[in-house]
């Protein structure tokens, strides 16, 4: 079990490094960062100056290795826009993103999983159809549009909630709903399908034949099995909500890492962008790693060989 975990951690690190390398290449090859930094109306001399100043004239591989070397030590360089260490800039904002992501995740889980379970117990009833409708709508709704609708309805028309910023806990309600709603359909469908399959399985019939009441049959036996693939997906979704909330943060002007990312791209603030990409890939591989470990823990067939 320990060896398994060790191998997976190593693999995760490898993936993170590869991602940072690829993104580095993509970013630096897509355009000339020197021009982006110097500004649209910079003279060729100014551009040349910027290039030498930031060491952008050296081979890309060297630049990457330098960057990686410093990154391992926790130094992600300075942001030319903020004139501050990238680490601090991101560190200031990561708390907000964590709160938002966690709330959105909780919302998604509390909405999707119970709905999926109930839909599986009572297939083809109104509740099943409602669950499927929510799922179908959720998959089709563009997240920025949903956010804007929430703002108009709850922020402007009803005036229940503040429409932008991240000052109080109230500011997080709508963004969390908008972000969480996006992940619910997949989670609900997986729960529903998994439960339906499990409920039709032989060991559930055995449980009933022992005289167990519907409660223990459902929760102790059925859910325990059906939840295994759901947990995996939930982890990946959580990772996405931590890192993929660019649009939601932008719409609600929540001052988190996503908002920073969009703005930094607009400003061609490459060190920040590069660091955020690394951060997001690390979050992703960590989440998949945790999900694998939890999977092995939940499913004895994997765990006990």
């Amino acid at each position, binding site marked *: 079990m320990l060896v398994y975990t060790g191998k997976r951690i190593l693999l995760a690190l490898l993936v993170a490094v590869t991602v940072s390398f690829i993104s580095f290449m993509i970013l630096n090859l897509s355009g000339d960062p020197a021009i982006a930094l110097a500004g649209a109306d910079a003279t060729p001399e100014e551009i040349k100056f910027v290039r030498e100043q930031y060491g952008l004239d050296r081979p890309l591989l060297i630049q990457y290795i330098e960057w990686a070397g410093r990154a391992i030590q926790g130094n992600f360089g300075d942001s030319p826009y903020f004139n501050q260490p990238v680490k601090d800039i991101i560190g200031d904002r990561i708390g907000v993103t964590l709160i938002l992501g966690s709330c959105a995740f909780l919302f998604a889980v509390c909405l999707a999983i119970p709905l999926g379970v109930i839909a599986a117990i009572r297939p083809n009833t109104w509740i099943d159809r409602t669950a499927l409708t929510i799922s179908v709508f959720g998959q089709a709704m563009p997240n920025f549009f949903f956010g804007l609708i929430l703002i108009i309805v709850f922020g402007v028309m009803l005036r229940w909630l503040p429409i932008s910023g991240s000052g109080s806990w109230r500011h997080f309600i709508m963004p969390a709903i908008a972000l969480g709603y996006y992940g619910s359909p997949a989670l609900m469908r997986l729960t529903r399908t998994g439960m339906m399959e499990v409920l039709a399985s032989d060991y559930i019939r055995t449980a009933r034949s*022992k005289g167990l009441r519907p409660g223990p049959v459902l929760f102790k036996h059925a859910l325990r099995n059906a939840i295994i693939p759901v947990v995996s997906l939930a982890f990946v979704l959580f990772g996405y909500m931590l890192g993929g909330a660019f649009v939601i943060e932008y719409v609600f002007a929540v001052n988190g890492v996503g908002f920073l990312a969009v703005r930094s791209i607009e400003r061609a603030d490459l060190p920040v962008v590069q660091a955020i990409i690394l951060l997001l890939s690390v979050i992703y591989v960590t989440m998949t790693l945790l999900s694998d470990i939890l999977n092995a823990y939940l499913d004895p067939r994997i765990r006990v060989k």
Partner: protein
Amino acid sequence: MSALLEVKDLYVDIPLAAGVLHAVRGVDFSVDRGQTLSLVGESGCGKSLSVLAVMNLLPKKAKWYADTITFDGQEMDKVRERQMANIRGSKMAMIFQEPMTALNPCYTIGNQLEEALLRHKPVSRNEARDRAVFLLEKVGITAAGSRLKQYPHQLSGGLRQRVMIAMGLMCDPPLIIADEPTTALDVTIQAQILALLASLQKEFDMGMILITHDLGVVARMADYVAVMYCGQVVETGRATELFENPLHPYTQGLLRCIPVPGQTKPGEHLGSIPGIVPTPIGKQKGCVFQNRCTYVFNDCTSAKVDLTRISAGREYRCLLSPEVCRQNMNESQAT
């Protein structure tokens, strides 16, 4: 003295897209303590559905009703699911066909065994554990203590079936129902499991309903037999009577399919029953066996064929008289 379980006039209907499937039509059977009743028939004849109906374990879509079901002196056909849940496991236990999938892969053997007892009796966890160990040893599993901590996937099919048997016995039920308990197992293990079931039945004085399609199993285990075909009981009787003197053409056909050591000559064709089982959707006209019966005649296609009673517990469902049936059997055996 009333029987332990008595079922009269059981019907099971399953709604399908093509119509309602009358899977079980007017089936009677009964079993007493210390006896083994065997329900025999081909796949799809309704034998499993019959016992699932009695235990109220049918899928939601299926509808069932019976004239009377009496269990341990109690009228059961009007019993609600709540009470049924109390009876399942404690008074009536079932062992299923597929041991590989019958246990929950996420919990230990011990957990699932103890659960069966803790559900019905107010005992402590330790007492439940002791009973589990006791029964595991009874079913022939060594190192029972450590087995309790194992997971189902760590056990072979034969072992899992033994665990299922132990699980059925946790509450000391008077009736045990075994639905093809050995079909999914190796031939060598089959014999062991059957012997185990027989000895346990004797020791605990249980009634047993044994469902099978294998006449060898019937010969070995059954006191009484009910032969089912296409949702109906076509012949009942003591096992010895049935094997010596099968009356219904279907039973005769089944027996002809088995090679008899000492009688069947090498290279001899085994019998087979031509045709396939019809699908019981819609209204029935005449005898259910008519399109496969060797002795069919005109009345078979139109008359309603009821069970003819020869003596207590000995019945058969055919228009031919017992003497003619006997004659048919002798003729076919002579050739």
